[in-house]
């Protein structure tokens, strides 16, 4: 499908880059900002294409064309399509997590309530780019994904936010201290991913997702409540 055009370009261009003489300091600055501009254009183009036609349906060549750069310059910045996707998601999620870091400390109510709020913020944020998020999940199983990429399920900050929620719950007495936090996190993450799939396949909106997710959170909460 999409892979044919991608592989050969990598090695050759990397070698070219190395072969060039070390540039002057001033030029480094220019080159650096050019590289930055290319990177941003690629990220924006990739984000729109992944969201419109999915991850597998998008080729590096299309991304380059939409960004108005050469296929070669895409590969000087990114090693693979998987890495581009990872970066697209990272840029987007940085904003979301900053928001959550601000909001979370002020939330009141039970641990389940706080988790519900946290995920509903997620859903309204991701609702703008449903397919993109699914692509992110699909890429977790991609053959060509580099080790450095961050597929769904390894998004550390989301996991940390949930963990803090649970730790606070232990202190406040509605989370069993004996419960394995990572297991609860993984259950919530799999519920979250499944709920998303519902959205894309059934065309459900953020409100429906929140309702479905709330039920699942409460069901899981019954499992981490002190006995």
């Amino acid at each position, binding site marked *: 499908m999409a892979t044919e055009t991608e592989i050969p370009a990598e090695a050759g261009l990397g070698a070219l880059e190395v072969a060039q003489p070390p540039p002057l300091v001033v030029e480094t600055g220019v080159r650096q900002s050019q590289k930055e501009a290319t990177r941003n254009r690629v990220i924006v183009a990739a984000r729109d294409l992944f969201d419109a036609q*999915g991850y597998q349906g998008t080729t590096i060549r299309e991304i380059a064309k939409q960004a108005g750069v050469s296929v070669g310059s895409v590969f000087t910045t990114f090693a693979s399509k998987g890495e581009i996707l990872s970066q697209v998601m990272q840029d987007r999620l940085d904003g979301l997590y900053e928001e959550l870091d601000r909001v979370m400390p002020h939330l009141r109510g039970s641990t389940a309530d706080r988790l519900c709020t946290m995920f509903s913020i997620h859903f309204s944020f991701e609702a703008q780019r449903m397919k993109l998020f*699914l692509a992110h999940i699909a890429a977790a199983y991609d053959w060509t994904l580099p080790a450095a990429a961050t597929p769904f399920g390894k998004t550390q900050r989301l996991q940390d936010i949930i963990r803090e929620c649970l730790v606070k719950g232990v202190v406040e007495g509605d989370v069993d201290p004996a419960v394995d936090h990572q*297991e609860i996190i993984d259950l919530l993450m*799999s519920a979250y991913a499944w709920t998303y799939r519902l959205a894309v396949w059934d065309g459900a909106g953020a409100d429906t997702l929140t309702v479905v997710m709330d039920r699942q959170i409460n069901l899981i909460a019954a499992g981490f409540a002190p006995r």
Partner: protein
Amino acid sequence: MKHIAPLQAAGEAVVKVPTRRTLAKQQTRAKVLAAARRLFSEEGYEGATIRDIAAAAGMSTGAVFANFTDKSDLFREIMLADMVALGEAMREAADRAKGVDDALLKMFSAGYAFYKSQLPLARAAFSVGWTPEEGPQLRNSEPSQQLIEQLVDQLNAGVERGELGQEAEVKLRAQMLFEAYLSNYKQAIFEGWSLDALQARSRDQIRVLLAGARRG
């Protein structure tokens, strides 16, 4: 759809003895499927091409296309056949269980044992399963729905025996159990978890997901 074909072939066979042509066609299909299974395991879904599959099966791409519409058709046929076999394995495992927790755990374990020897194929299946086109087809397929149905049956049996309350939200709980079961493949595929480790994890997940439904 195309993958119903074997069933129809079997139905015809009752009425009349299959001709040599039908037999040859079945053999071709089997050969292609075996080659495709191997290549999907080795190269992943995207990496395996129809051309490679045809070469591995020792035939032309034309002969492959005479039997399957495209690569996704081939992959789906393999997946569906596996899911039917998996469903059988799970049913047998659950029959030997005592109580709802044990039945669910035995079903999960049967699943992990089934895929243990073909994790690369499972990985390809997950990758394909999240695509907008193929995902719904696999997930909504009869064999896949049957797996969830089995979980529903076990939960209902738990309600009947009084292990779980009447308000057990059986459908949602079955779906969540299924997702939990699937989510552990990530550990199996990428972190090399043993069957024992997967089983221990599953036991905890089942306990958590059933906690709110228990009586008393």
